[in-house]
């Protein structure tokens, strides 16, 4: 187990450098970062050259990358062009996004798994068909449509929620955005759980559990669900990373000043330091989430051994 973790951590190193390099190159292709600084007018060539030298942008890309990575490892993610430190931006943005992600995950787990169990046990019945159609609708309608629709209906028309989340982003204001963010994954979790439950419901050990005279509830929760959740947990685990980075649309719609908002601003203003910095952290989150999921496998299914 320990050796496995070490091996996985070592494998992460090339993945980490590979992804950061890719991001770095892509941001460089994005356009001239200096051009955006002078507003609508063209920059004065002398000023531009001065800025270029100041930010080290006159050096070759590989050198820029090395300098950047060197700084990253000392905890310096650079400064955004407005003078704010990128780490400061992160300190305000990440807690909000983490809160939003947690809410989304809770929705996925509670609603997704419950619906999955109910439909899986009643396969082919009206409940099952209805939920299946609904999940299909949710999956096929893009998030920005569901998001804007909910914002319009609940926030503007009915006034149940605030259409725009305040800068502190308290939990109660994040509930609807969390649901929007979770919606697609929630539909997948429902379907995944449903299939898994329906498949395992005919398993021999479920029959044994029934033959033992256990109450129906115990058979479903302890025996059936415990086995059926293994693929679902994997999905939710990897989804943590995807949700944190993928909240750009949701955060834009509800004006949440989280990671997605900062990334969007960074891309819009061609602010490479912000973009690379945030994405680097997201890469780390994704890698960590994957490792945890792989380790969880062994906890959930004792037949799996790591060596």
């Amino acid at each position: 187990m320990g050796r496995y973790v070490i091996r996985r951590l070592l494998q992460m190193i090339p993945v980490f450098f590979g992804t950061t390099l890719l991001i770095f190159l892509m941001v460089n292709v994005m356009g001239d970062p200096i051009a955006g600084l002078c507003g609508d007018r063209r920059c004065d060539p002398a000023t531009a050259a001065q800025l270029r030298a100041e930010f080290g942008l006159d050096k070759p890309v590989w050198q820029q990358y090395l300098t950047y990575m060197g700084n990253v490892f000392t905890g310096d993610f650079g400064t955004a062009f407005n003078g704010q430190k990128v780490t400061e931006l992160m300190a305000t943005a990440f807690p909000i996004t983490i809160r939003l992600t947690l809410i989304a995950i809770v929705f996925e787990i509670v609603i997704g798994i419950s619906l999955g169990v109910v439909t899986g046990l009643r396969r082919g019945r009206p409940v099952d068909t209805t939920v299946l159609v609904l999940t299909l609708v949710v999956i096929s309608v893009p998030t920005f449509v569901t998001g804007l629709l909910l914002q319009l209906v609940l926030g503007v028309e009915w006034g149940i929620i605030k259409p725009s989340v305040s800068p502190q982003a308290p939990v109660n204001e994040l509930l609807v955005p969390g649901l929007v963010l979770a919606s697609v994954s929630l539909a997948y979790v429902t379907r995944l759980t449903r299939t898994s439950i329906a498949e395992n419901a005919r398993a021999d050990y479920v029959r044994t559990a029934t033959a033992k005279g256990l109450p129906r509830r115990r058979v479903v929760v302890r025996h059936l669900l415990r086995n059926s959740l293994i693929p679902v947990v994997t999905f939710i685990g990897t989804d943590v990373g995807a949700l944190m980075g993928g909240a750009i649309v949701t955060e834009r719609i509800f004006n949440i000043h989280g990671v997605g908002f900062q990334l969007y601003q960074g891309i819009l203003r061609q602010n490479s330091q912000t973009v690379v910095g945030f994405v680097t952290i997201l890469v780390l989150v994704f890698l960590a989430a994957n490792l945890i999921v792989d380790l969880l496998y062994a906890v959930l299914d004792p037949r799996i051994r790591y060596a």
Partner: protein
Amino acid sequence: MTTIDKTAEVPSARSGDDHVGPLLEVRDLHVEFHTRDGVAKAVNGVNYSVNAGETLAVLGESGSGKSVTAQAVMGILDMPPGRIPQGEIFFRGQDMLKMSYEERRSIRGQKIAMIFQDALSSLNPVLTVGYQLGEMFRVHQGLSKKEARAKAIGLMDQVKIPAAAARVSDYPHQFSGGMRQRIMIAMALALEPDLIIADEPTTALDVTVQAQVMDLLAELQREYNMGLILITHDLGVVADVADKIAVMYAGRIVETSPVHEIYKRPAHPYTKGLLESIPRLDQKGQELFAIKGLPPNLLNVPSGCAFNPRCVMAQDICRTDIPPLRPVTERDGTDLVGRGSACHFWKETIHG
């Protein structure tokens, strides 16, 4: 139709209830499955009974309805697609088919327990054996986790699993096949039920382990004076442990008999065929007999006697009339206790 009569001298039922008569009595049980292709009649009027301390072996090939009958008794049939259109299952004189779900649940595991064929897939792969054994005590007797664990260790000792205390928190896949089957047996025994149904308990095991497991089962049965229904297709397994035999074919009982007599003088051509297809040392080198043809399709059972297309003795009557299970007598008409055959030509089969 006749039911199987008492054939073995058995002590009276151990728990203090005043019910007289057989422990379990199945009467005219029918089970059908509604599938896309039609109605599969898996069980068509089965009658049998088991007394305390007695072993009934139900013999038959795959699809003969032996497991389905057992599942109907346990109340673990998948319904739908399964359905019981007709029949009664009396346990201690009470018809279980008329009971509520909760009443039946409290009987399951506590009064009637089942041992399944493939212990690896029948045990939950993600729970420790200690947990799965202890669950019986926790659910039915409300014991604490700790007490249940202690009981589980006791059970594992009883079925002779070495180092039980050390292995109680192991998972099913960490045990060998024989040990896993012992755990299944321990689980069935946990609450000392009155009746155990063993559905091909030794099929997945190698021969030496088979013998060990059967001996263990027989020993525990004697100890607790339980009724045992042994479902198998292995005639060899039956001979040593069973008191009486019921042979099933296409959802019907075609022959019933006390155990040893059936080997000497089968009264049904199907049983005869089964016995002749056992390899024997004194016939080494000769071609082994096999019953020709295939088991019938349950969606479309042949008219008359279901065995007629494969039977060497089949006549016209066999294709039109379903033979009832009739008592079998000696040539001079004296009763053969417990014997019955559902064949138009049982006389020719047994005495010919």
